[in-house]
């Protein structure tokens, strides 16, 4: 009938809710880190941690909610090409203008 069927079975509604709880907790931790930095903890510790947490949330949504983990590898390739291409391009741009050095404190 169709060749568009997922490679692996998708998560159940219960698992989707569990993923949402993880995302909510990660968001809470991010906000907590913002206030920890306000209280005087070095941004050299807080900012990289915030970026790691955002990357984790990003990957969770892409893998589980956008089903990249369960689909044909071609889809993951399309996604990766767009994302990595943009990341590389703008890292070079921001690096050229010295913005990344400024973010690093």
């Amino acid at each position, binding site marked *: *009938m169709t060749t568009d069927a997922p490679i692996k079975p998708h998560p159940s509604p219960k698992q989707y809710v569990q993923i949402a709880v993880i995302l*909510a907790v990660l968001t809470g931790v991010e*906000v907590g880190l913002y206030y920890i930095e306000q209280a005087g903890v070095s941004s050299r510790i807080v900012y990289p941690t915030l970026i790691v947490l*955002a990357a984790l949330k990003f990957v969770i949504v*892409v893998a589980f909610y956008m089903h990249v983990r369960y689909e044909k590898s071609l889809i993951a390739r399309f996604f990766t090409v*767009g994302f990595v291409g943009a990341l590389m*391009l703008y890292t070079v741009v921001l690096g050229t203008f010295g913005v990344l050095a400024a973010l690093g404190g």
Partner: protein
Amino acid sequence: MSDIAHDEHLHESTGIETRKLAMWIFLSSEFMFFGALISNYLLFKGRVGYPEPYPSEMFDIPFTSVSSFVLLMSSLTMVLADHAIHRDDQRATRTWIVATALLGMVFLSGQAFEFTEFVLHDPPMKISTNPAASAFFTLTGFHGMHVLIGVIMLLTLAGTSFRKGRLSTATGLNLESVALYWHFVDIIWIVIFTVVYLIK
């Protein structure tokens, strides 16, 4: 019949439905678009010597955190709608689509409130106040516009569902494609929330 209609949307060589493939290619290009706007903000947020206030002085983090939470939860309701239509549970599909649209509208209302607060503040922060404000309004405004388009697509799906009694996966605006778009809008906000709001 529906199988035939479905097969008409299949890409011959990839085995991936054409509409889904088109949405992935579109989203892939959207990374460039939002990458440019985020880079633009990062480039201008540190520029001093312009009239104040700057965006980072204006942010209400608790309020924006709630907005972020709302958008994250809309991804949950969206994926539940997608799950329901694959089980052909039309009632649940409709319920989760409407819930997602409502959460999207709550997020947009929050953004409208935030923008209004900035503009009515004394001294006001408008799009023309300084380059950082200009970059901020452009970035978050375009993201908001994407959310609005998503809400319109969701309401169109909901309207179709109410009118015809069921949503078809074979023809017309496809729930799976709309879901992909919606989750994309969510992941872009995940980046904006951290890079723009939480990192000074």
